[in-house]
């Protein structure tokens, strides 16, 4: 890993490399450069997971032509695919070193939907919600019960916008969650359920199930479960696995072809 990055930096395949380094005892994202190549000795995979691709988009905004290398867990790779589709990053300017999920030797211990995990990742502290809840788990309960529970969860919201801020695929310059016509400003909790549902709708075909939003939510709202449900519908209706590739998304209206094409009707599951 270190040798490869070193080569990349030296032969100018990349200008900077985003990885992790221990600073004051904390594994922090770190930007490695050719000028300080000796720092590469400290390059680690990092036990805490940050959205390096979000940092990359911020760097790209300031410096559009910069070539960035980064460590990429599965979730980072999926997020990159979505960012390529939505023209937030140019695939030609990004190189990745693919690493294991939520650092574990075994991928089964990874913590996201594409890996069908049995238990939560070892490094993930489980507080409040079960981070691996699947829509089927809660659909055992009847509808009024689910509604009550969701409203209970939503009213805990302190409107910190952490879920949006930390999300690798939330990049809008004007966010609907701050739009006063949609979400009445100045009240706590924010208008529910609309605040959470607006975001949930936006996550259709965009959320790559990294779980960072749920990690960042101070009041443990099972946000990931909500977006899993939304994307289950996306899979059923459009046969589209968000982030699985950098192929155009059915939700992307830019480009030459209109792609909002549902799956043939007979295969749409009419479950709800």
């Amino acid at each position, binding site marked *: 890993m270190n040798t490869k990055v070193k080569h990349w930096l030296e032969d100018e395949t990349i200008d900077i490399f985003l990885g992790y380094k221990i600073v004051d005892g904390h594994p922090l994202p770190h930007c490695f450069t050719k000028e300080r190549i000796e720092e590469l000795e400290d390059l680690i995979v990092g036990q805490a997971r940050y959205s390096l691709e979000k940092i990359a988009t911020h760097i790209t905004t300031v410096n559009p032509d910069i070539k960035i290398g980064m460590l990429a867990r599965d979730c980072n790779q999926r997020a990159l695919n979505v960012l390529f589709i939505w023209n937030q990053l140019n695939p030609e300017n990004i190189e990745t070193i693919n690493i294991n999920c939520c650092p574990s030797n075994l991928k089964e211990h990874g913590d996201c939907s594409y890996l069908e995990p049995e238990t939560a990742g070892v490094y993930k502290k489980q507080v409040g919600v079960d981070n691996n809840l699947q829509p089927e788990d809660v659909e055992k309960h009847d509808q009024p019960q689910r509604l009550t529970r969701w409203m209970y969860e939503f009213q805990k919201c*302190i409107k910190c916008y952490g879920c949006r801020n*930390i999300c690798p695929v939330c990049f809008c310059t004007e966010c609907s969650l701050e739009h006063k016509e949609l979400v009445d400003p100045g009240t706590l909790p924010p208008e529910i359920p609309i605040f959470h549902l607006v975001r949930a709708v936006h996550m259709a075909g965009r959320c790559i199930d990294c779980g960072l939003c749920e990690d960042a939510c101070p009041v443990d709202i099972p946000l990931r479960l909500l977006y899993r449900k939304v994307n289950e519908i996306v899979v059923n209706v459009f046969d589209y696995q968000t982030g699985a590739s950098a192929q155009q998304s059915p939700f992307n209206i830019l480009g030459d072809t209109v792609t909002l094409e549902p799956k043939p009707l007979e295969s749409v599951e009419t479950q709800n």
Partner: protein
Amino acid sequence: MQCKIVPSVCSYCGTGCGILFEVIDGKINSTLPLKTHPVNEGKLCIKGWNLHEHVNSFMRLKKPLVKTSGRFITTEWDEAIGLTADRFSEIIQKYGPDSVGVLVSAKLTNEENYLAQKFARAVIGTNNVDHCARL
């Protein structure tokens, strides 16, 4: 092109959440929660998430202002501190040290709060020390 991730502590309240500043080309671009910090464990409130905005705000005062003939005039620290010391001495001489009070804040560090009470007791000579949370 320079990009640094700088760990720090939120200065907005006494909780002291761990944060990371994303600094691109010398400008604080955004704030992130420090995921391994024992206090906040990767979470922040809305104030913490927006720390960079108050650093970058055009309304931020970067130099002391002294009110002269009803108008605020920009000055240097030495002059501003000198002026404040002179006025304090005058007031203390005329009305006694208990005419002065010192308000500390959760936005300061423990050490700064310690220094502030030391300043009140040892320099000014008063026990009038209180905290902004009681205002």
